[in-house]
């Protein structure tokens, strides 16, 4: 396209959720020319839906709390493939990061002492698993994500960050040296395509829960960052690891927070039995999410599910009393009444494990710098590209994320990447250049879509994709079933490449955006499928019927999916934290 | 702080207070007049004008008249800035609004002077 406008910034952040806005804030505060490209107005990002809180050892509930205990929980929760240097960084930097948010105005709930209120969440312990349940999740009622996202947006307003609201990044611009020079983006309102050029491009595009038919994720969670990275030929890590949240509202998919169980709620089967006592005698309903989700599915498979079809279980809250529910879980009352037609004050909520979080993503170091591997399998930094938040795989969540750790991940690594870019810019980071061909290449996909004249509709293809993923790559996985799914996906690739865009208008054309999103969904789905089929073991959220045990000998490592060859490789897990001893892999029980 | 519509330098708060305070005076005065009718069932011009021979009543009337003028001005100014804006009238809005407001000022001034003359004139 000739005459395309170029906008130039020191740093451009793609995504206006928690991670993106925390990174932007860091850069804007130090006066760098920073832009946030976001496909929805920032406060509409999916961070807004986070409910329960942000887990962090601020020692409010327990004055003796220690970030090392949080680190232990996180390493164990990750089923030992979380990178220990990154987890160490997150847990130790966490308190400072949370205090900064509070100073910015985040309206945390409070204890009688006036400190931030902390509630118990799954997988939390004191004294390295020996001291019983901890309460470490800092909460603003059950609207922590909303409070956090609005606070960050407000902080950015204060610091004059440039927002390109309702702009959609379509692809990375990569030059001949393999460096990232910026992105191609569409201004949704006008339909104009622009080259947004920057010294540092930060992906904070969030997750891709929409690859599944049933998900707690917002409609906008279409894996745009992962899609762009894969199309640019970069690998993704641990992408087979998808968290199924135990308590999605049956039928609607909307989330009810783990905080419900933290406050004392519990799951029951059709006989009214608190079944988690059998599966996790100590932590019970506050075991790791993967453990609880699997237990629920087993209950259902063994005929103890609730309802006419016996296809869900119940979350009981009524014993907590109306007062507690009103003050601690007001949003849950609202959601249950709206989406489950149930009043939790009186009756239990029907729930079912629902796709919730992408543990995998673009591999990065603790500074947010995106990584790939050379032929020898060594890490290589991708010049100019950064990733933070759910799209990134630092990896602090490994094979299973603990509740409350995602908000912490967002702000800690958003801040870390911001700081690192700040430093690089301070040292005179130069703007790399792209040739006309490089830019044209990045526009190929968009041009092809704009020229499409026949083919199937986005909604049909998307539904098909989501059903394949739901049926073949769910809570329990099996080799032959997954191979079948991969076959179906490869048949779908061609059809999605030929998707038909019948509305070619410029102004606020959401049909075009949805078509572009569909291609990203597909990239994520295919990577998930191939990586899942490749990991011949059960670990964390990845549970296989045909390989029921964890295989530390072969798979105590990250998976790396390389899109060009559609190959699954391996990458070592970091077991070398700087200030504490390594947490050696142990049998994981709750 | 919105500064670009002239309101003769008053703050929103003072307008708001004047509006309510003047309303109280107007209500009190209305009651007072009503009471005089109730107490004088055979009201004729003699009685009526004797009521206004009392200086206290004249002063009260003057205060009420001033309150009425202030109340009317704030009210009319508000109405004009609600309904006579560029959203409704386009570019000529400011001209129309100022003309309207000038008309109001003039009318209010006439009533005020006329009222003073009635109460305090011979």
């Amino acid at each position: 396209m000739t005459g395309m406008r170029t906008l130039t910034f020191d740093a451009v952040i793609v995504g206006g959720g928690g991670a993106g806005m925390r990174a932007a804030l860091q850069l804007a505060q130090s006066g760098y020319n920073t832009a946030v490209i976001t496909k929805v107005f920032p406060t509409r990002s999916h961070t807004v839906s986070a409910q329960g809180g942000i887990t962090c050892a601020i020692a409010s509930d327990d004055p003796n709390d220690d970030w090392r205990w949080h680190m232990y929980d996180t390493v164990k929760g990750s089923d030992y493939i979380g990178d220990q240097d990154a987890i160490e960084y997150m847990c130790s930097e966490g308190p400072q990061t949370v205090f900064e948010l509070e100073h910015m105005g985040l309206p945390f709930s409070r204890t009688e002492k006036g400190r931030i209120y902390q509630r118990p969440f799954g997988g939390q312990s004191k004294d390295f698993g020996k001291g019983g349940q901890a309460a470490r999740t800092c909460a603003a009622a059950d609207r922590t994500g909303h409070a956090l996202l609005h606070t960050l947006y407000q902080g950015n307003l204060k610091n004059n960050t440039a927002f390109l609201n309702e702009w959609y990044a379509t692809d990375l611009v990569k030059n001949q040296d393999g460096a990232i020079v910026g992105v191609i983006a569409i201004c949704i309102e006008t339909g104009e395509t622009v080259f947004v050029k920057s010294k540092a491009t930060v992906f904070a595009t969030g997750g891709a829960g929409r690859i599944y038919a049933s998900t707690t994720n917002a409609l906008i969670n279409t894996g745009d960052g992962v899609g762009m990275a894969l199309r640019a030929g970069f690998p993704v890590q641990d992408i087979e690891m998808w968290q199924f949240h135990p308590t999605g509202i049956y039928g609607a998919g909307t989330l009810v927070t783990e905080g419900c169980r933290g406050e004392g709620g519990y799951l029951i089967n059709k006989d009214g039995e608190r079944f988690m006592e059998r599966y996790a005698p100590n932590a019970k309903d506050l075991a790791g999410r993967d453990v609880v989700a699997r237990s629920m599915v087993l209950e259902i498979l063994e005929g103890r599910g609730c309802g006419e079809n016996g296809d869900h279980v119940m979350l009981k809250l009524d014993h907590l009393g109306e007062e507690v529910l009103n003050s601690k879980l007001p949003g849950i009352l609202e959601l249950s009444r709206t989406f489950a037609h149930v009043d939790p004050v009186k009756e239990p909520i029907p729930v079912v494990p629902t796709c919730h979080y992408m543990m995998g993503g673009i591999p990065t170091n603790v500074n947010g710098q995106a990584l790939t591997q050379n032929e020898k399998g060594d890490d290589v930094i991708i010049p100019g590209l950064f990733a933070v938040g759910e799209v990134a795989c630092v990896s602090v969540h490994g094979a299973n994320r603990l509740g409350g750790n995602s908000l912490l991940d967002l702000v800690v690594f958003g801040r870390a990447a911001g700081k690192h870019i700040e430093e690089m810019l301070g040292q005179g980071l130069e703007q790399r250049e792209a040739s006309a061909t490089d830019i044209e290449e990045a526009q190929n996909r968009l041009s092809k879509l704009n020229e499409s004249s026949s083919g199937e509709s986005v909604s049909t293809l998307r539904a098909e994709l989501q059903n394949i993923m739901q049926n073949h790559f769910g809570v329990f996985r099996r080799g032959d079933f997954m191979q079948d799914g991969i076959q179906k996906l490869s048949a779908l690739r061609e059809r999605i490449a030929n998707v038909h865009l019948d509305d070619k208008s410029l102004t606020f054309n959401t049909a075009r955006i949805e078509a572009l999103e569909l291609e990203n969904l597909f990239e994520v789905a295919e990577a998930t499928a191939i990586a899942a089929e490749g990991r011949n073991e059960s670990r964390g959220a990845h549970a296989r019927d045909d390989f029921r045990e964890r295989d530390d000998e072969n798979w105590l490592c990250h998976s790396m999916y390389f899109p060009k060859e559609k190959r699954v490789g391996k990458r070592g897990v970091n077991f070398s934290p700087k200030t504490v001893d390594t947490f050696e892999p142990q049998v994981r029980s709750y | 702080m919105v500064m670009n519509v002239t309101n003769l330098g008053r703050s929103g708060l003072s307008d708001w207070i004047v509006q309510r305070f003047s309303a109280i005076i107007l209500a009190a005065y209305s009651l007072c007049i009503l009471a005089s009718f109730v107490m004088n069932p055979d009201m004729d011009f003699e009685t009526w004008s004797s009521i206004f021979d009392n200086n206290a009543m004249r002063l009260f009337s003057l205060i009420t008249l001033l309150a009425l003028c202030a109340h009317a001005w704030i009210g009319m100014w508000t109405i004009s800035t609600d309904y006579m804006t560029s959203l409704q009238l386009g570019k000529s809005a400011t001209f129309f609004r100022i003309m309207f407001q000038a008309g109001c000022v003039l009318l209010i001034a006439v009533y005020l002077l006329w009222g003073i003359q009635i109460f305090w004139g011979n």
Partner: protein
Amino acid sequence: MLVSIYRYNPDTDEKPVMQDVEVELPEDKDLMVLDVLALVKQQDSSVVYRRSCREGVCGSDGMNINGTNGLACITPMSTVVKPGGKLVLRPLPGLPVIRDLVVDMSIFYKQYEKIKPYLINDTAPPAIERLQSPEDRAKLDGLYECILCACCSTNCPSFWWNPDKFIGPAGLLQAYRFLADTRDTADNERLSELDDPFSVFRCRGIMNCVAVCPKGLNPTRAIGHIRSMLIEHGT
């Protein structure tokens, strides 16, 4: 089910029209209005609306549903359409339409930005969080939950007449959220900024904002509190 939708595409249309679309709905399920819109978009991909979280917390899909502003994603069909009736969808009133159900919200956001929607505290922060009692924190309940969906402000006649000068219920609710926060030290500056005949005082207590807020918040009450604070501030 008949759905009547406000259609306008500036690329092709001179004037907006109401278009009737027939949609088949499942009989056993009470869909949300947003679900119905998704079905419409399956038939005609050129129908345009905003949406994101689909659970009433992001504030994207504020629109006028059978005459009342609300969020499409948490408005069940049964509450807005009588059996045999039709669903009528229009963009939020009072803001310029970009296309179909999508309005230009810049002026709404500008009013929000005007009230300095961020905590101001010039004292040096402590090493931990600033302390706040649960009672003081409770003062923020009913204020901080706003999702900026604009259902209230676009339902307010005063905002219709003076969208550039009257902050509107959404912005004022947030103004009070910071005035009420014991950690904020800029009350005087904030109040001085609000003390003109438009920013706050165009509120006539019509309470249309309260009637439509999908989160059940009460901007009129917050405006009343601001007024009281202004009186104290002024005397």
